[in-house]
């Protein structure tokens, strides 16, 4: 579908019509914290934001979800699976880095080991991405990992703010369906507009991630990790705000006769994450745990799923880490190390 435009005023109306038919989710602000949550009308949304603190991943793979409830009556056990969604959803305002993260998570939850809860949420959700404002935040480095803040790739519709209108690129049927919903609100672009209404190019510092994986794998025994992990407090915020982290824990809550099985986020930075029943813990100190986190992002994940690096450069982890461990510096330190090609 070719590019259209919509005025800023009409955007609200469009979103309200969507809210009538779908469950509309978008960025809201609460005491200075941006989070993606359901809204009744577009008025509740905010547009002044760089990105949410808790990534939209939480809408597909929530911090806690009930898998099923069980009831034991005598010998017979009744199971009642939880329906992940009551209604189809539209997520407005998702940034491209998070869209990128969803494609990585799709490989985890929808490949050979299919997770029905995640898959249903993904299928019944339409993504309206919102291109990042320029200049991008100084901490962002998504381009390093091949994410183009201005490309609709991965989402259903991309809106780009070009002054008093938004450019609308619907690239999937679901996207087109949504655009069709807002009938009169969209207008095609005139020739002139097509040329001048171009978003300014994104200039963002590029990190050198060539052979990042090979250089990293050479550092397994390096004492670099000892020094890097000194300020780390093992608090797990980095994994809870990371859009690509996907480790979880399962536990049953309830009485011996009836209860609910829950799934919830877990973090490899916790001291007891890898603790085994025998008491053995392959990653006893935070040196191993810090090293493991980066090895998973830049080595294990790509080799396991054949994708790029499992980082989308959203910078949430480095902004919120109380210890100040910064992934960008780690990448720089690793590439500064004598790489394979230099040898």
């Amino acid at each position, binding site marked *: 579908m070719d590019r259209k435009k919509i005025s800023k005023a009409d955007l609200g109306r469009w979103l309200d019509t969507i809210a009538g038919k779908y469950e509309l989710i978008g960025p809201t602000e609460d005491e200075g914290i941006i989070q993606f949550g359901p809204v009744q009308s577009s008025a509740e949304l905010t547009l002044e934001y760089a990105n949410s603190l808790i990534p939209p991943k939480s809408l597909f793979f929530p911090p806690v979800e009930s898998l099923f409830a069980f009831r034991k009556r005598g010998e017979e056990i009744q199971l009642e699976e939880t329906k992940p969604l009551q209604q189809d959803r539209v997520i407005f305002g998702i940034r491209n880095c998070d869209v990128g993260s969803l494609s990585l998570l799709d490989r985890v939850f929808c490949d050979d080991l299919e997770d029905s809860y995640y898959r249903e949420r993904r299928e019944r959700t339409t993504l309206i991405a919102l291109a990042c404002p320029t200049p991008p935040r100084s901490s962002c480095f998504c381009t390093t990992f091949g994410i183009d803040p201005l490309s609709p790739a991965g989402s259903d519709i991309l809106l780009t703010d070009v002054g008093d209108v938004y450019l609308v690129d619907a690239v999937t049927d679901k996207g087109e369906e949504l655009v069709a919903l807002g009938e009169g609100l969209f207008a095609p672009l005139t020739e002139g507009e097509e040329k001048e209404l171009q978003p300014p190019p994104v200039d963002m510092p590029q990190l050198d991630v060539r052979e990042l994986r090979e250089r990293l794998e050479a550092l397994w025994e390096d004492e670099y990790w000892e020094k890097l992990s000194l300020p780390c407090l093992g608090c797990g915020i980095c994994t809870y705000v990371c859009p690509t982290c996907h480790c979880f824990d399962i536990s049953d809550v309830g009485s011996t006769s009836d209860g609910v099985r829950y799934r919830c*986020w877990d973090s490899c930075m916790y001291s007891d994450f890898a603790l085994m029943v025998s008491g053995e813990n392959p990653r006893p100190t935070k040196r191993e745990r810090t090293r493991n986190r980066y090895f998973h992002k830049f080595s294990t994940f790509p080799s396991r799923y054949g994708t790029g690096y499992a980082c989308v450069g959203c910078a949430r982890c480095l*902004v919120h880490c109380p*210890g100040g461990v910064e992934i960008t510096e780690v990448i720089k330190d690793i590439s500064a190390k004598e790489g394979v090609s230099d040898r």
Partner: protein
Amino acid sequence: MEDKLQELVVELLGDGAMEYFIGYRQGFEPSHVVPCFVTDKSEADRLIWGPLCLQNLSKYVLQARDLDGKVGLLVKGCDARAIVELVKQHQIERDKIVVVGVPCEGQVDPRKMEQVLGVSMEQVTDVEDAGDEFLVKVGGEVSKLGKEQVLRDKCFYCKHPTSFDYDYTLGEVQPFTIDSESEEYDAVEKLEELPLEERRAYWLKQFERCIRCNACREVCYGCYCKECIFDRTDPRWLDRTPLPRENEIYHLIRAVHLAGRCIDCGECERVCPVNIPLGRLYKKLQKDIAELFDYEAGMEYDTVPPLVDFELDDQDPFL
């Protein structure tokens, strides 16, 4: 001030007085200050000091327990209370730490500054202390901000342990005083005056938001147990799943453990990714402990923590 600090660290590292020094350095953007571990003289120049050095570095000394040498630490007045408690609770000997006291004139609460400036901290390139104002440089030009607008809550009633024994000081360390009409326990009293159901709803909303990332526990100096009671599976005090009920158990039990330990350093509230006002919960405890047992954590070495002590004439409403 910063060069005095850097010289001192270089000197101390030089004559082997300590294995490494813990201070602050600038992070990925000017307004983002992070802890800095200086192991070698050459890195001393990265050390900075200013109103944005927010972290309480005291917990890091616990890593140096099994070092044979000492560990240096830059200590604000409020952080010094953590050192007093850690020594009092046998976690580390006082002479294991080289304490460098820094005269702190009050710290900035980034969120308050963002609200006042109307611009994200990203644009702020420098904040300097100037008596009862801060000089804030945003995109080149400098503006003056009255301290009481952007000060961290705890700084309004700075309780610096008068008797603290710094090994070195970068200038006379005095409790920072600012006249403001807000009293220490205002926020707590405001909540206390709410009717019961509203208070219940208020805290329920907070406990529902919690995702149990444990950041408040890991960042807290007082939570140094080798194996936390919440990580035990035998018995399982609470479930890993962040349900409102389990979260409530987590926060109330942690509050009880911190009763008499919490020194109001404000870190738990600062790092909480879902913005739970934990400070108010722990402030309530401090208020009760001060009123009921006339005790303040981290002020003297020789006092006995309140919940493991008693007076014969303690208040007794239970007759």
